[in-house]
């Protein structure tokens, strides 16, 4: 960890030589380790110490961006010079409102010594304990256990000085028999909140119950989606619908349905970067405080997230969801997605199902098929079960679904009161806090051999 004082004093020195009208410097540093295991042995075990330092040089309405991963003063000055040089070639961006000034940011604790001090030996010790749990069933295990610390700082010549030190940990595990698999995962800023043995037991139990899966014909079925499955569907829904870019391009279903009730009134989806039950951070990569943004309120689409440029273009204010300037073409993105809980337990939802399917998680979802209708497709995996008369009867072979999430979420039979934090599949900084959900109808359009 470099520390707030050293980062900002270094940036003061670099910015002092800037010939730009405004200068922004963003620091994203990480010191992370990841232990990966398969066939009940550690096969990959890695550590990385890295940083990205991004410069945004502003001349009038022209913006130049350059980045380096070297904190050497000469490299920083050279990168700033490069950003300024690039800005000279830029065209005016008439929607750019300038860099922000300082604001009040929520003071939240996102750093845990327990996680920062976690070592490869600690991860290996716990992973071995997990292997013992699967050995008892003669199953094997695969997964990944990551721990790390990092720093995020946003500096600009208008006086913004945002700094947050963070830790993070996540674990995913698959238990595998000769005919089935089961999955569990955990995520927290404090590694002590992750119980690898308990997660291993959940995965083993699922794999055991799913053994010798039976085939099921494609068609419409009642389903219970467990939190990992909901998170995977929500992650794609977020990507195609809740950002500023898709809203402006009209590819988002939110753009076509603002104020209309299109889902069940139990469905509320929002982003809250200050909620400590998620992976909170109180500011975005422009140094704007994160605001809570409701995407769907009781089944009614309400809006999307914005950064400063997209907000200005749309005649509104930034919600504090800017990405690093190097990704600014993607617009604003929600990184702390929540789905409001219901009032049922998972067991109550199961008991209320006459005939249907329990889905542990999905695989390889894609949502580009027909984005205004939010049509998603994907496969089930790692624990798909046939439920009859309120009981899990047996495992079933995996199925492909192809369905509109709007249609699926318009027929809700129950939502769990427990919410689980799930890491984003494709982005190390994102997370989703979601419940299990019981849907009256879900379209399965294909089958597979396992």
């Amino acid at each position: 960890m470099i520390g707030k004082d050293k980062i900002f004093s270094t940036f003061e020195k670099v910015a002092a030589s800037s010939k730009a009208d405004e200068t922004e410097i963003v620091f994203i540093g990480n010191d992370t380790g990841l232990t990966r295991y398969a066939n009940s042995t550690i096969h990959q075990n890695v550590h990385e110490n890295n940083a990205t330092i991004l410069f945004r040089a502003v001349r009038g309405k022209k913006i130049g961006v350059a980045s380096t991963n070297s904190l050497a003063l000469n490299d920083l000055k050279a990168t700033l010079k490069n950003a300024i040089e690039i800005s000279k070639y830029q065209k005016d961006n008439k929607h750019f409102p300038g860099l922000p000034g300082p604001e009040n940011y929520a003071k939240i604790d996102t750093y845990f010594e327990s996680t920062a001090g976690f070592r490869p030996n600690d991860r290996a010790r716990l992973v071995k304990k997990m292997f013992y749990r699967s050995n008892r069933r003669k199953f094997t295990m695969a997964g990944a256990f990551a721990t790390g610390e990092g720093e995020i700082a946003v500096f600009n010549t208008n006086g913004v000085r945002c700094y947050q030190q963070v830790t993070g940990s996540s674990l995913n595990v698959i238990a595998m028999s000769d005919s089935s698999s089961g999955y569990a995962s955990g995520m927290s800023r404090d590694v002590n909140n992750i119980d690898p043995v308990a997660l291993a037991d959940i995965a083993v139990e699922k794999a055991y119950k799913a053994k010798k899966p039976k085939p099921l014909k494609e068609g419409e079925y009642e389903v219970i989606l467990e939190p990992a499955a909901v998170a995977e569907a929500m992650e794609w829904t977020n990507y195609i619908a809740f950002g500023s870019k898709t809203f402006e391009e009209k590819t988002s279903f939110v753009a076509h349905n603002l104020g209309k009730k299109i889902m069940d009134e139990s469905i509320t989806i929002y982003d809250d970067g200050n909620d400590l039950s998620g992976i909170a951070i109180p500011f975005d990569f422009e140094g704007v405080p994160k605001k809570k943004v409701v995407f769907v309120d009781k089944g009614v689409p309400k809006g999307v997230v914005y950064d400063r440029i997209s907000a200005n273009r749309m005649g509104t204010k930034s919600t504090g969801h800017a990405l690093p300037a190097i990704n600014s073409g993607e617009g604003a993105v929600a990184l702390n997605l929540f789905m409001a809980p219901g009032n049922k337990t998972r067991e109550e939802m199961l008991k209320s199902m006459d005939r249907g399917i329990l889905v542990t998680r999905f695989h390889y979802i894609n949502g580009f098929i027909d984005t205004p209708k939010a049509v998603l497709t994907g496969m089930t995996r790692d624990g798909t079960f046939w439920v009859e008369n309120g009981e899990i009867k047996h495992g079933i072979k995996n199925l492909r679904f192809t369905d509109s999430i709007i249609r699926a979420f318009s027929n809700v039979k129950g939502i769990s009161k427990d919410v689980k934090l799930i890491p984003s599949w494709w982005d190390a900084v994102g997370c989703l806090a979601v419940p299990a959900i019981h849907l009256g109808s879900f379209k399965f359009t294909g089958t597979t051999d396992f």
Partner: protein
Amino acid sequence: MKDKLANTLDWLKGKSVDYADCRYVRKETESIRVTDGTVDTLNREVNVGVGIRVLYDGAWGFAAIASTKEGDIKKTANKALQIARASATTKKVAVKLAEQEAFKDHYKSKFTKDPFAVPLDEKMGLLLEICDKLKTDDRIKTASGSMDFFKYNKIFCSTEGAVIEQDLLESGGGYEAISYDGNDVQKRSYPNSHRGDFATRGYEFIESLKLLDHVDRVREEAIQLLTAESCPDTIKDIIICGSQMALQVHESCGHPSELDRVLGTEISLAGGSFMQIDGLNKLKYGSDIVNIYADATVEGGLGTFGYDDEGVKAQRAPIIKNGLHVGYQTSRETAPVIGQRSNGTMRADGWNRIPLIRMTNINLEPGTWELKDLIADTDDGIFFDANKSWSIDDQRLNFQFGVECAWEIKKGKLGKMYKNPLYTAMTPKFWNACDAICNKNHWHVWGVPNCGKGEPMQTAHVAHGTSPARFRKIKVGVSK
């Protein structure tokens, strides 16, 4: 730098490691993206560091540092050693590496025009002109174009004596138009969706794409899609264009023939493979005309290089021969499992990641047909063009692809346009239904710059040489 890496390896040898290698990588990136007349991305990035892989007591450790100071590199080597010791506590079988010649070489990819030396004005100007021309109709809601350039200097040294330097240069670009009529939204792109086409070549590759020549067609087809019929739900003979065939090969042959995935080491994230070892030289993967090679030597392919990140020389290896599954993409650790030496497919997406088995150029060999003859030979079918969506199960069997646009084929002629077209099948059944592949006149190596694998996630630059092909009796149009 070579001396610093050599000194570090000497230090590790003194610690009695089984094996170690050091990789220095300097990566320079330039990205330009234009949307509706605004240059919303214009950035340059430099990323430098060293990654060290240590095999100790038969187990792996890896550590990486964003520094080139010898003291930092040695500390990182020690960290890699400590991590390997931790890994060894769960070891069942000691890792053994296939034999490998220790090369000393300097490989440079070929190019004629350095894209980093082309004035920004020229590159931005071309993209702005494209967007302006796409937006000459009010129904084009958004027009965007992009170019990306990558320059690498890589040094690989190992305790076995390898010293390999590589200089690689990659270029790519493309554009898309999103149409909107107050009701529906559609998209068309050129030369391919998802940021265009890429190659291990210089700016001459961008020039060869003749981007401006296709603007009018892209705009008009994007508008035409708004009022096109939806693809029917039925069984049809289908012809798939070259760029979609690239993704078809990628998902249904490239990934499942990675031997690390077959051995289960990727199962927790992206899954396993149906192409198991007991099916090698037995599994009838496709029809007799299907031949697929992993070829890292194709000139200009985005998966072309001199040596992989284990110091194994680039090569051409058969995966599917006359429809039979005959090979895998392998590494020094996995190849001995099938009694072979590595065929050189281990690559990392930077100094800070370990090498994994990654696709090189996974190429479907050209067949004998002219495209016009193939269409004329099809009585009742659909022609699928340009990828829009992709999904496949975790053993790479059940897949579903969506494309931007399709056309009915009736009695040998292209007919009406379809929107939101999908096709779906099981991989071996699909490839065994392949009865025609277009010839080398239609064959092109498509660059795919966004292939994800591993934890932490790595993004590889790979490619696929393909031409249009026909498949009989395939389920289409399952989006409703």
